[in-house]
């Protein structure tokens, strides 16, 4: 069981990296990766939100949607839950841990439209929906944590590279977005190397 979970964690974070092999959450990856600090802030916020959102969505699936045979409502329910949850996390952080809120606050609203959050919640239900309740919750949370750590790793690495290439002499037509996409492509090739690990 533990070994399986560790494999799941490595698989979700490195082998099937959420950005570089599944293309979820590209907008923040390209938009908020100019500086390592802001990228790390965004990454940590995403880790928190994806983990909590997946736990809540799997819980709702197990307690409400599955017993009532309403699983076709997954998409509608999950997106509303995620939107509400992000607001709630924002309010709680503001009240309880103002210092963390100041650090992450601006990234929280951006996360609602991060397709990785909804994607992970839906994939959990799709892949682990047939498991027993307890097992499904554990697998969902581990998968969500692994996936979002993969996001954190990718966005911080990207920001590190972008800081280095910022003042480089890039061909004029490749300046800006194109060189960032080339960087992302090279990173994706590097992450292909993990494919044989498990």
């Amino acid at each position, binding site marked *: 069981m533990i070994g399986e979970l560790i494999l799941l964690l490595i698989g979700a974070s490195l082998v099937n990296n959420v950005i570089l092999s599944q293309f*979820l959450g590209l907008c923040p990856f*390209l938009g908020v990766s100019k500086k390592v600090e802001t990228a790390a802030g965004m990454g940590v916020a995403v880790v928190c939100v994806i983990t909590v959102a997946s736990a809540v969505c799997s819980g709702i699936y197990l307690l409400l949607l599955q017993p009532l045979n309403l699983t076709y409502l997954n998409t509608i329910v999950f997106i509303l839950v995620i939107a509400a949850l992000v607001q709630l996390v924002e309010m709680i952080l503001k009240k309880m841990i103002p210092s963390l809120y100041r650090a992450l606050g601006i990234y929280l609203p951006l996360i609602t439209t991060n397709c990785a959050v909804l994607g992970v919640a839906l994939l959990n239900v799709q892949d682990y929906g047939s498991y027993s309740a307890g097992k499904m919750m554990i697998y969902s949370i581990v998968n969500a944590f692994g996936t979002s750590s993969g996001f954190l790793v990718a966005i911080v690495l990207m920001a590190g590279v972008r800081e280095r290439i910022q003042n480089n002499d890039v061909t004029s037509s490749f300046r800006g977005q194109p060189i960032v996409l080339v960087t992302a492509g090279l990173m994706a090739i590097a992450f292909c190397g993990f494919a044989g690990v498990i």
Partner: protein
Amino acid sequence: MKKYFGTLFNGLIKENPTFVLMLGMCPTLAVTTSAINGIGMGLSTTAVLMMSNMFIGLLRNVIPEKVRIPAYIVIIASFVTIVDLLLQAFVPSVYDALGIYIPLIVVNCIIFGRAEAFASKNGPVVSLFDGIGMGLGFTCAITIIGLVREFLGAGTLFGIDVMSGIPGYTPASIFIMAPGAFFVLSVLTALQNKLKAPSATNQEAACDSIACGGNCASCAGSVFVKNKEMVEQARAAAEAQKAAEKAAKAAAAKAAAAEKASAGTAAEEKAAAGQPAPEKEGKGE
């Protein structure tokens, strides 16, 4: 009638969501491993966009301003669920190929962006045409990207083998893998930069202090309204600062002119004219 075709043309060419607005990049990169997948994804998105635009256009006066975001989300998610179930029932091959990206149409920026920017301000019929135009623009764009990737990566076009006759030909399969998507898109944006074609990527960054560059055309969604206000405030402050500097310069020039007339009073005037400028600069920061 001209109005309807105008919006149709606008979505297809002038404001093409993929090539010009650079919206909805996740599906653009993820499902374009072949042209057929591109068409499937594009048409599904078009169907959702048409219906959601029309319904939001119909209900725009009924939905209260404050709860419009959740209301739009529910409308969009309902149509996505309908499309998802229809594809599962009638086109299972496309459904299997697109997988998780069908329910993820909900968070596609194009749909929310059009709801917020167009359908919430226009009637149902015009909104419907806008949806068709934008949707077809998206479909064409991702089909073209899919064709390029399929041709380079597998040597086929729409699944038909076109390169096998050439001896010694091996497809560069990296183009149908994940890295290829980034490379194709990067070459595309570089071409747009080179040709100075209108695109979200080759505009001057409006505001460097914000990570997205303050380019609000690329994200018209709900949560960005706050950021947009911030950007607009920053812009207004910058303009006010510029105006203040101009006024100060003019005053300084006046003072300099006055200095020629009488040296004694000019120094006082200059001090008075110079004072408000740095104060405003502080406010602008």
